[in-house]
């Protein structure tokens, strides 16, 4: 196959062309024994215990953006979802739905970064599927990934376990991914170096869980951002969550763009950040462990869990007032008169 070629419907038809693409393009990149067997599915052994299993589909536009691309996102996203269950992610499946006419060089670039992301996260891509659909039926490429991970004995994290007195840790700056995608997609560029935060968080999670510290909730605040995720936790756990605006980590340029766009960084997506809710006594220690991870250097405690206003997230603002951080209901409509 030539890199200058484009994807044809034949590439997904299951015939010779399909087979060639798999063996020449995909297999060398995702190189591992299980995939190489080319059975209908991957077969592997797992030790007794609890498994975590998660799936997600990626349709991001644009497919390449500062700080990553759709391929890296698809792997990190599922790795992180599995990790947020307290599990060590092991195996991943990949489903590709490609628009006829996509450049093979672009596809290759995406597959390469998927391979790179899998390596970095320490997971293997063991099964997959490729379909090609006529022009206009999808936008360039959609990717589905599923992942399986192993939950170590004794680990029990879940969105309904936040308790009053717990601290809320965010593992780094927020809204980087959301702002990057938006400015790329809409051609809204300031001269600044904003980029997506796409990153695997499984090593960070592992380090925290292995430290013996108690962890009540782990979540990655992707779509909907920290605001939406915390609202979900507040409802699930029937607790109030108080945030302090002056502690929220937002990069200067990101804050600038958010202010300009009239968007609240609390509602913008992250792809390499986690929220950890831990008992007050362990908070400092967990924070230190997170900060030692390559993707957690800017972690901070942004708030605490309270027994007031169950189900609500309240932000103490810079000027000393309080504002409800609501669950986002679709588009944000102006309300000031």
């Amino acid at each position: 196959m030539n890199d200058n070629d484009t994807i044809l419907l034949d590439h997904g038809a299951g015939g010779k062309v399909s087979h060639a693409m798999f063996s020449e393009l995909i297999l060398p990149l995702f190189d591992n024994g299980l995939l190489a067997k080319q059975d209908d599915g991957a077969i592997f052994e797992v030790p007794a215990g609890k498994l975590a299993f998660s799936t997600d589909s990626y349709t991001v536009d644009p497919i390449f953006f500062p700080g990553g691309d759709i391929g890296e996102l698809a792997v990190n996203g599922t790795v992180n979802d599995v990790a947020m269950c307290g599990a060590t992610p092991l195996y991943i499946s990949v489903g590709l739905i490609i628009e006829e006419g996509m450049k093979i060089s672009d596809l290759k670039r995406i597959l390469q970064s998927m391979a790179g992301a899998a390596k970095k996260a320490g997971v293997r891509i063991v099964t997959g599927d490729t379909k090609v659909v006529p022009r206009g039926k999808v936008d360039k490429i959609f990717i589905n990934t599923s992942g399986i991970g192993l939950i170590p004995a004794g680990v029990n994290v879940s969105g309904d376990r936040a308790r009053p007195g717990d601290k809320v840790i965010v593992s780094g700056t927020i809204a980087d991914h959301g702002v990057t995608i938006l400015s790329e997609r809409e051609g809204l560029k300031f001269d600044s170096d904003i980029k997506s935060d796409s990153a695997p968080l499984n090593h960070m999670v592992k380090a925290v869980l292995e430290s013996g510290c108690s962890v009540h909730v782990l979540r990655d605040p992707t779509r909907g951002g920290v605001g939406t995720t915390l609202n979900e936790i507040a409802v699930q756990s029937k607790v109030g969550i108080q945030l302090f605006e002056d502690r929220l980590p937002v990069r200067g340029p990101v804050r600038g763009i958010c202010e300009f766009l009239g968007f609240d960084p609390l509602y913008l997506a992250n792809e390499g950040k986690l929220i950890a809710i831990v008992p007050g006594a362990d908070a400092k220690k967990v924070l230190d462990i997170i900060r030692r991870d390559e993707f957690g250097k800017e972690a901070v405690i942004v708030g605490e869990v309270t027994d007031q206003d169950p189900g609500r997230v309240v932000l103490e603002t810079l000027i000393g007032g309080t504002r409800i951080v609501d669950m986002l209901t679709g588009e944000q409509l102006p309300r000031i008169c």
Partner: protein
Amino acid sequence: MGSSGIAAKKIEISGVVQGVGFRPFLFGLACAHHLCGHVSNTDFGVAIFIQGAPKDLDAFILDVLEKKPLLSQISDMVSTDTQPLELTDFKIVKSRDTQTRSALISPDVGVCPDCLKEMQDPADRRFEYPFINCTNCGPRYTIIRDIPYDRPKTAMKSFAMCPDCRKEYEDPLNRRFHAQPNACPVCGPQVFLLDNKGKQVDGKNPAQAMALAAQFLRQGKIVAVKGLGGFHLAVDAANETAVERLRQRKKRPHKPFALMAAWDSSLFHHVCMDGDEKALLLSYQRPVVLLKKKALSKSVSTGPAPNLAPDNRCLGIMLPYTPLHYLLLEKGPDILVMTSGNRSGEPLSIDNAHALDAFSHIADYFLLHNRDIYFRADDSIAKIQQGKVRFLRRSRGYAPLPVDITPPVKDGFANILGCGAGMKSTICLTRDRYAFLSPHIGDLESVQVHNFYSATIEHMQKILDIRSMCVAHDLHPGYFSTRFAKMLSCQGLPLIGVQHHHAHALSCMAENHLDGKVLALTLDGTGLGTDGHIWGGEVLACTYEGFERRARLNYLPMPGGDAAVMEPWRMAASLLYKVYGSGIMDLDIPFVRSLNTSKLAFLIQMMKQQVNSPMTSSTGRLFDAVSALLMLCHKISYDSQAAIALEAAADFEDCRTAAYPFDMKTGADGCLIINSGLWVRQMVTDIKRGVPRGRIAARFHLTLAGMMVDAAVKVAQETGLDRVVLSGGVFNNDTIFSHITRMLKTKGFKVYTHSIVPCGDGGIALGQAMAAGALQGKMNGI
């Protein structure tokens, strides 16, 4: 006189007739007219049995209507003839406890002249006592926890009356007969003064507390003062440095401060005042009255500081309304800033401990007292437009008195709760022919205001004994009021969504007792429309049940949503973008030159890509746009700042001032669309020519008025409607208000405006309740 010459009547009076000295008044009146009988409080008001000579009876009835106590309001008086009894005197009969449910609760009232005289008399036992009151004055709504209105159910419950006070309280001929807050220095509440660390500094001497507070104010210190319905932050209003310090500490750079001044202070030399304004200022409700500043010669050195209301044509002034205020102005500076004591975004503080916590960084001292405020009431704000009182905020002194909604409401209405909008919110409860609007609640943005909001609903339902059967709310899904309504509907109450400007229009129809179908000019800031866009520049044809949108301003994008409200320059760019497209970058006018090119390009890109750029037909945003275009206001720090600056800048002196030409066309949906193209191009030409911006500002006002009136005329031709109601926050602009009313009248319209509820969002709840009532099918004539 033989018994044949004796007649007897049963008289039932409803309205505000309890807790306002009505029974002692009747007692005195009966004695004066040599009549016998008795009076008691009932669940609707008071019931009288009275007998005597027929001519005395007639005189008695006439006097009841004419001489009724200051605070009373008679909404109904029914008298029936009955058989005389064997009676020799007139008695006040004790009322049964549970009988006062549907009587009306009086608002809080400024201290009366009689009490004031006593307070200033060194021989009186209440000399300089800051809590002096009687049945004609003093606190009501703010100290009532429940009904019936009896001392144990008020904040006075912890003060046992001394024998002197009790004697007054029990004497039907005394001015303090059954005055629930009756008190004196021996038995009543006391003031004390703390520094901002909470240390008492008055040597446990109340007189010393007053004297020191006054002294600190004279020295330019900021003193938090606990008043009637909540805290004020006070500072000497003639001291520019002190005022500036308060601005900085309160993080309130520009918003006008309310002033309180002694009637004989120099402040009144600095403002214009006509008879109506004077009467409003002196009324016992004591609202903040907006009065136009006078252009004074520079030689006048004493007077209000220049930074009290920058870029504003008016000063907001009130006279003292509690005895404590009188003492403070007498001993301290005679003009004080009296701005509401609250932490930014929170409701008015009413609790000593909370106040100390919330603004110890703002106030240097705290003048407190030990009478609790159960329910807060912010100062009301009003002004006179064309000889009528108009409210910007209807609160203390007025709420919770009802608005009478007969007609259009005939025989009652399901009890409805109108939840209001999102900003400057109030709620409305209806019962029969009455609509009760709550005092001002505030902007529903913080947890504290949310809590105050739900507490207000609960409290009003309790003291007015109303159980709501139906809930009306705004269409905006993000307003707390809407969410609250939806929560109530989960408890089984039917829910009715009412479009924001429909509600504005109905509030005006209701207070003017209009029925049927009318035109409405709704010129406003922000309100969600039925098409998902933001409205605020509409001509509606409406009834209580529904409306058609017949004309509107063309849509402009609001780049950044709420950010476009806070930063009027965005709306200026949006207006230019609408007219010139990307050509805006090449416009050689000061506004465009002042902008950072890449910022402007970014903003244009946002609008082009429709990124967080909702569409609006709001008149408020048009004001913002023009204000920024004329370089009057780039960003705002308080509501309507840009529009206020634009109105203040408008100069109508020049006889060449005329409206810009404008055009409109009918859209696909039949709605008339008022275009921005023509007049904006003319305005930009004026700017390029260097026409003074005062004249451009004036021409804009005329243009807007002209466009709206023209649209109304066109719609009237199509619909045959000749009655028009004016509502929406933009009508707080005197220039727009007066031009539009005058022009409409010239065109033969019957024009109806607000004088009971605010034209802004503080009146929305009433309109919502009216719509819901109509849709429940209980209204007359629809």
